C-alpha cells in the first residue's frame, strides 16, 4: 500500500540514502545480498554498506563490464548481487554483458544507474543518461524501474531483490520532491493512479511525476480534468491501468526524463497503437544529447516543465 504525501516539499534527505537504507535493512536479514560498485560508492553513500558489511561489498574499480559479469557469476552460485554505476556506464558501458551474461543467461542481478537524465545536471553530456532505460527495454524479460522519490526508491530496491530476472533501476542521488509518505510500498509492474480525471491521461515517472501532478493542478484551473499515473515500472508495463485510463480520457501525455524515441512514451505508444489508439503527446528529450546546466534550466531547455506538460495535454485533447 502507498500513501500520497500531503505536501510535495523537497525531502530533507538525499534520495540516494533510500538505496543504502534499503540495502542495509535487507543485508542484515539476508546474507546472500551483495553490493558491487564501480568506484562510485561514495557518490551514492554506499560506503555505509562497505562499513557495515565489508565482506559483502566489492569495488570493481572503473570497469563496469566486468562488474556486471562478476555479478552474474556470483548469482550463478546463489548470491543476490546489486551493481552500481552512473546510469550512462551502467547501461551503455556494460550493455552486452547485461544483455547476454545477465538477460539471456537468466541471471537475476540488479543494476543501479544513478543520476538519471537531467538530474546529472553539471556533470554534463558525458554523464547524462537519456537512453539508459531505452537500452534495457530491449532486454527480454528485464525489469526497468524509474522511481520518483525516497519512499519509492526504498520500496523498489527491496522489491528488486526478490525478482527472478535482471532489473535495472534508476537512482536519483540528490534530495528531490516527496511524492509518497515513508513506508509506502509499490508493486513492480503496477502503476500508481495518483489522480483521477476524465479529460486526459498524464503518465509520468521519476522526476517528472512532480511536474505531472502540478500540471494537473494547473489544468484544473482551466477547467480540464486530468488523470495522473505514476508509471514507475517501464517494463513490464501496466497495460491494464493504461488502457483503462485512456479508455476513459481518450487522450494521453507521456512525460519522461529520457529520450522519447526509445523511452516510456514509445513503450506506451506501442501498446496503444495496437490496442487502443488515442492522440498522444510526448514530453521528454527529443533527439538531443545532454548538456551542462542546472536541472531547472535543463527542464526548460528540453521542454519538460509543468507548463509544457499542461500545454501538451491541451494539444492532445484538441486532437481527439
Amino acid at each position, binding site marked *: 500500500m502507498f500513501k500520497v504525501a500531503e505536501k510535495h516539499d523537497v525531502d530533507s534527505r538525499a534520495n540516494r540514502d533510500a538505496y543504502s537504507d534499503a540495502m542495509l535493512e535487507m543485508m542484515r536479514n539476508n546474507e546472500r545480498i*551483495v553490493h558491487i560498485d564501480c568506484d562510485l560508492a561514495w557518490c551514492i553513500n554506499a560506503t555505509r554498506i562497505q562499513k557495515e558489511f565489508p*565482506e*559483502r561489498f*566489492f569495488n*570493481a*574499480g572503473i*570497469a563496469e*563490464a*566486468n562488474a*556486471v*559479469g*562478476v*555479478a*552474474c*557469476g*556470483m*548469482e*550463478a*552460485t*546463489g*548470491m543476490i*548481487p546489486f551493481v552500481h554505476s552512473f546510469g550512462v556506464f551502467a547501461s551503455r558501458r556494460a550493455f*552486452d*554483458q547485461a544483455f*547476454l*551474461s545477465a538477460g*539471456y*543467461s*537468466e541471471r537475476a542481478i540488479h543494476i543501479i544507474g544513478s543520476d538519471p537524465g537531467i538530474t546529472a545536471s553539471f556533470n554534463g553530456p558525458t554523464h547524462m543518461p537519456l537512453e539508459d532505460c531505452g537500452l534495457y527495454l530491449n532486454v527480454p524479460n528485464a525489469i526497468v524501474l524509474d522511481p520518483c522519490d525516497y519512499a519509492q526508491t526504498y520500496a523498489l530496491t527491496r522489491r528488486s531483490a526478490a525478482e527472478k530476472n535482471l532489473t535495472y533501476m534508476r537512482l536519483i542521488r540528490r534530495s528531490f520532491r516527496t511524492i509518497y509518505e515513508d513506508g509506502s510500498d509499490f508493486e513492480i509492474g503496477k502503476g500508481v493512479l495518483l489522480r483521477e480525471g476524465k479529460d486526459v491521461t498524464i503518465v509520468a515517472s521519476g522526476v517528472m511525476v512532480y511536474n505531472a501532478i502540478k500540471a494537473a493542478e494547473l489544468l484544473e484551473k482551466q477547467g480540464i480534468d486530468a488523470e495522473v499515473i505514476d508509471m514507475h515500472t517501464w517494463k513490464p508495463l501496466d497495460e491494464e491501468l493504461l488502457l483503462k485510463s485512456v479508455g476513459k480520457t481518450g487522450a494521453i501525455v507521456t512525460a519522461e526524463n529520457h529520450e522519447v524515441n526509445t523511452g516510456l512514451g514509445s513503450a506506451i505508444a506501442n501498446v496503444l497503437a495496437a490496442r487502443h489508439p488515442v492522440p498522444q503527446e510526448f514530453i521528454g528529450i527529443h533527439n538531443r544529447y545532454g548538456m551542462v546546466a542546472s536541472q531547472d534550466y535543463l527542464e526548460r531547455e528540453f521542454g519538460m516543465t509543468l507548463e509544457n506538460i499542461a500545454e501538451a495535454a491541451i494539444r492532445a485533447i484538441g486532437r481527439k
Partner: protein
Amino acid sequence: MHMENLNRLRLLACEIRMETMKIIASKGNGHVGGSLSIADVLAVLYGEVMKYDPQDPNWKERDWLILSKGHAGPALYAALGIAGFYPKEAAYHLNEAGSDFPSHADHNRTRGVDITTGSLGQGISEAVGVALGNRMQGIDSHVFVICGDGECDEGQVWEAAQFAAHNHLDNLIGFVDSNGRQLDGTIDEVMSHGKGIGAKFDAFGWGVIEVSDGNDVEQILEAVRKALTVKGKPTMIILNTVKGKGIDFAETSGEHSSTLNKQQWAEVLEEAERKYAELREALL
C-alpha cells in the same frame, strides 16, 4: 603419475577429438580448429582433475568449467557426453533449429554447461564471480576457465584479470589456449600480445605457468597440479597449442571455422576413428 593413467587421458583426448568431429560433421561446418586445440585440457579436467556429478550437473560443491572461448562448444559437448551428462549421440545435432547443442556453449540448453558464453571476454568475468561467490559461501572447489589467445584482445579479460588478482582468488585457475591464430590471421598479424600473454597475466598479479606443449596431457596435468597448490592469487596456465590439432586438414589450414562437403567429412571421420582405434590398440 602412472603411465597407465596418462595413457587413459591421451586416449580420452583422442576420443574427444573424434566425438568433436562427429558433432561438427552433423552440421557440416563449425569451429573445428579452436575445438581441437583444447581437447587435451578438457581430457585432463574431465578425466582426472575436476569433481562433478553427471546426475546432478548443478551440484553446489562441484568444480566449474567455464569455456570463455564459447565457440569451442563442440569440444565441450564431446567431453560432457563422454563424461556421462547425456548420451554422446545426443550432441550429433549441432545448430539444428531448437537444438540443445548450439555452436556456442549455452547453460540454458545443454546439461553440464556451467555458464553461457560466446561473446568473448564475458566468460572470464563470470568465472571470477563464481569463484568469489563460492569462496563467500565457504565452498571448497575450483573454477576453471578456458580463454582463447584471440579472446585476450577483449578489454573485459583484463578487467576480470585485475579483479581476480585484487581479490586473491586462488580458487580460480585459467587457461589460455594459445594456438597462435584468430579469425582473420595469426595473433601476430591481427593483434599481438606485447611481451607475451603470460607476461601480461604476470603483470596483472596472477601466477603464470607456461606449458610448452599445450596438447600434451602430461604437461597440462603437471601444470594444473602445481596451480592447485598456489595460494593467495589466481593462476593462468598458458597452453601453447596447435589450432586444429590432431586432424590433418585442420592442422594444416589453421582456420577458425571450417566448411567441408560430405565426402570430405567422411574422410575426416574415417581419419578420426582410425587414429582413435590405433591409439587404443597401442596404449591398451
